[in-house]
């Protein structure tokens, strides 16, 4: 076997195996460096995998040499590659941009533990994205969740602790619901491998346990993905986490749950879904719609920039759920594109917030007044990412909104009202972003000081490259489009050829 065949396994092993080494270090800087290198390496691996997926495809990887369904397999397709790019990219962005901010938040003595947990979270999320086995997904979901709790609990505000406890309870309920669902499926099929499951489910698809299983899995993963109204853990967790952690988890952790949801509902339950696609749509679309509208409206009333962006995330998850709920080719394309583009925009926005907090020390609106005049470079990047979030032509956000509207228009009877809802919520996004932008450019700084105070050049470069990526993928969206196309094909065709 040559190295290229091992890529799916290496994607998980590299961060996972670096973590124990990192916690043994005694120096915060070395631990950070180790984590960054491992994260960069896995970003590199994700790129290699993407190239392979778009080329000849990635062969199934049998862990331990045991062929599935007896052993655990790793499968990488377009959708997995998209997730891997998101996860490793967000982690690298957070680590590289977060050095200064994390040095303030975490004392040197505990830093190795923190970076160890970061790598484990990264490995867990990658593990979910490549897994081809339902129980293996549960194990890696728990790895990433436990590690994420640690990362959030590292926030300096004591409210980080109460937020993370709530997240822990809800996250565990979600994971346990998922496990129950997997149990019911196992009971009726005797297998845990996704492909094998889809094959064997065909005979028992209409039995009661399977319908219950679909319910448990959907609710459990919706809890993890913070689909409205199950989002109550998300805003506080994002707000009080250390800023660099917010960059990482806001960009990818909920999307990985949505990824598993797509895998299950389309890859495994597709037989059920085809017979009941109306039911599924009717169930998910009202939730998604109320999420899009209400969460955007709530975001307008926030006085803390991180909390505002967190509510905006809930709204964006609504878009993804809406697109996925349509159960059509165009809808799935839109869902995947929006996952990618939203992660890009949110990552950039939170990175800018990190820079703001680094210089002013707080994320509340009152403290950030006039920041646009003091930090013009960072603020400009913030505006670009904000435009992408709204969906202005020329940015990445436009591409996915366009696909979303095309997909929604394809819905007989519902098209026009849904399009109006999407446009309304985009306008709401303009409102809440404008509130901040206005304050940043025209507000009076709390101490009246308007002198320049930019963050150091490396961080500014990073912020700007992230912002430019938003424009790049808006003008040249071939890569995410190709991956989404490949992912949609596998999803709609089941995991089978």
């Amino acid at each position, binding site marked *: 076997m040559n190295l290229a065949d091992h890529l799916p396994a290496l994607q998980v092993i590299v961060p996972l195996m670096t973590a124990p080494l990192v916690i043994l270090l005694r120096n915060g800087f070395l631990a950070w460096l180790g984590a960054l290198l491992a994260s960069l390496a896995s970003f590199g691996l994700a790129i290699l995998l993407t190239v392979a997926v778009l080329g000849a495809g990635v062969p199934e990887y049998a862990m331990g040499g045991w062929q599935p369904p007896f052993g655990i397999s790793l499968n990488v397709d377009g959708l997995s590659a998209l997730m891997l790019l998101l996860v490793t990219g967000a982690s690298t962005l957070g680590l590289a941009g977060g050095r200064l901010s994390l040095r303030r938040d975490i004392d040197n003595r505990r830093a190795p533990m923190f970076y160890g947990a970061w790598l484990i979270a990264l490995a867990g999320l990658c593990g979910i994205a490549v897994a081809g086995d339902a129980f293996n997904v549960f194990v890696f979901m728990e790895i990433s969740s*436990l590690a994420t709790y*640690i990362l959030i609990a590292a926030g300096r505000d*004591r409210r980080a602790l*109460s937020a*993370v406890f709530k997240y*822990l309870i809800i996250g565990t*309920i979600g994971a*346990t619901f998922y496990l129950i669902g997997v*149990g019911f499926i196992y009971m009726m099929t005797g297998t845990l491998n996704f492909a094998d499951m889809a094959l064997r489910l065909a005979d028992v698809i209409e039995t009661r346990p399977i319908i219950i299983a679909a319910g448990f899995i959907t609710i459990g993963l919706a809890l993890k993905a913070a689909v409205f109204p199950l989002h109550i853990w998300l805003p506080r967790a994002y707000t009080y986490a250390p800023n660099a952690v917010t960059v990482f988890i806001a960009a990818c952790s909920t999307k990985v749950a949505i990824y598993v949801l797509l895998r299950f509902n389309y890859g495994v339950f597709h037989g059920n879904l085809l017979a009941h696609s109306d039911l599924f749509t009717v169930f998910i679309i009202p939730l998604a719609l109320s999420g899009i509208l209400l969460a955007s409206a709530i975001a307008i009333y926030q006085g803390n920039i991180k909390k505002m962006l967190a509510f905006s995330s809930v709204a964006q998850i609504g878009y993804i759920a809406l697109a996925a709920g349509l159960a059509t080719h165009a809808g799935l394309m839109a869902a995947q594109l929006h996952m990618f583009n939203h992660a890009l925009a949110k990552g950039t926005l939170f990175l800018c917030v990190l820079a703001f907090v680094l210089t002013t020390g707080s994320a509340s609106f009152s403290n950030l007044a006039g920041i646009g005049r003091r930090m013009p470079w960072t603020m400009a990047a913030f505006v670009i990412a904000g435009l992408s979030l709204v969906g202005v032509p020329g940015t990445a956000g436009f591409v996915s909104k366009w696909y979303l509207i095309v997909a929604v228009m394809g819905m007989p009877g519902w098209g026009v009202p849904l399009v109006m809802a999407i446009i309304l919520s985009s306008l709401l996004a303009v409102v809440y972003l404008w509130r901040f932008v206005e304050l940043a450019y025209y507000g009076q700084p709390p101490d009246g000081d308007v002198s320049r105070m930019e963050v150091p050049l490396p961080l500014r470069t990073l912020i700007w490259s992230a912002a430019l990526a938003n424009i790049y993928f808006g003008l040249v969206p071939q890569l995410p489009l190709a991956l989404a196309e490949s992912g949609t094909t596998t999803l709609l065709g089941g995991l089978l050829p």
Partner: protein
Amino acid sequence: MKLLGLFNYWVFAVLLMIGLYALISKQNLVKKIMALAIFQSAVFLFFITMSRVDEGTAPIIQAGVANQIFSNPLPQVLILTAIVVGISTTALGLAIVVRLHEEYGTVEDNEILAMDRES
């Protein structure tokens, strides 16, 4: 007979809901952690019930005994892993509760929430 054969699954459902009820209604955070443990134990029972076979024994091959019937090893393996996951969650949750008590001086959810609102 058929009904008794489903009794395990009913106990699973009841335990699961007792755990969930306590998770929702109890304010004490330690109690919430215990409720989470009950909640997860119910799932363990569910899986292990699936693994049992009539006339079977634990899946350990004994030398010299032929034609044994074994219970299904796979759910047992899954639950071994899940038990470990459960205790890990308990430990981490408890550590968070201890820290919360140090910061807020209470472990009642509603009091903590009230303090959060004030600040």
